[in-house]
């Protein structure tokens, strides 16, 4: 009658090293492809709003006039669709996850002033 079939495993575990990753003493496990959080290279953004339209949980708000790109961290499911649809490939997925918070986290990223205007000015100056 196979009783106590687990004994071997249990004793092996006691004598061996525990499997536990001592997080937070040791850093979190992650891979290159891990989907941690979304970042934007705002300099490259053309505020087309594609990401906003495709985002499955409406985490992104793009304001073409104010040249802002806004993300609600508590809505983003880090699916990466925005990165995929971005025509300028200026959205990236970083492997480290976003920390917890005690309230809403909405990040507003202000883009640089529109470059075309600068160009125009430069022309007139010349």
């Amino acid at each position, binding site marked *: 009658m196979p009783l106590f079939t687990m004994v071997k495993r249990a004793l092996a575990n006691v004598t061996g090293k525990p499997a*536990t990753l001592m997080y*937070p003493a040791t850093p979190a*496990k992650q891979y290159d492809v891990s989907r941690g*959080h979304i970042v934007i290279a705002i300099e490259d953004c053309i505020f087309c709003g594609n990401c906003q339209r495709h985002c499955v*949980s*409406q985490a992104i708000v793009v304001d073409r006039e104010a040249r802002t790109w806004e993300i609600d961290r508590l809505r983003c*499911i*880090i699916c990466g669709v925005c990165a995929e649809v971005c025509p300028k490939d200026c959205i990236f997925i970083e492997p480290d*996850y976003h920390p*917890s918070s005690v309230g809403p986290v909405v990040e507003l990223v202000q883009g640089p002033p529109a470059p075309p205007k600068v160009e125009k000015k430069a022309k007139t100056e010349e």
Partner: protein
Amino acid sequence: MSYITKSPWIIHYDGSSCNGCDIEVLACLTPLYDLERFGIVNTGNPKHADVFLVTGGINEQSREVVKNTYDQMPDPKVVVAIGICATTGGVFRECYNIMGGVDKVIPVDVYVPGCAARPESIIDGVVRALGILEEKRTKMTEKGGK
């Protein structure tokens, strides 16, 4: 420091999630992450619990359950919303049956993002909740003292 931060007992409820976050909560208890290192025990019983981990965007039927469970926890207590569904409703925000976040039903102290929230994230969230628990405990004794 009060002992409550050394022995926070948790209860977990799946308030209409997709399971993804729930199994990650459970994974936190298993050898690789081992929440018991922090004295955390999964009680499954609101009356023994100090920390309430809720996942999911809370639907019509779960609302009452979440509320009851919260009410049955003795003070001091904290609520941790785990996963995007629990924080804002996530991809299901626009579903007809979803309240859109745990804070629509009970006060939430810590929001843990992620879909699914990673175990490390959850550990962080719980640890952050302990600070709040300690504060609440201090407030409670002050009030009790008067």
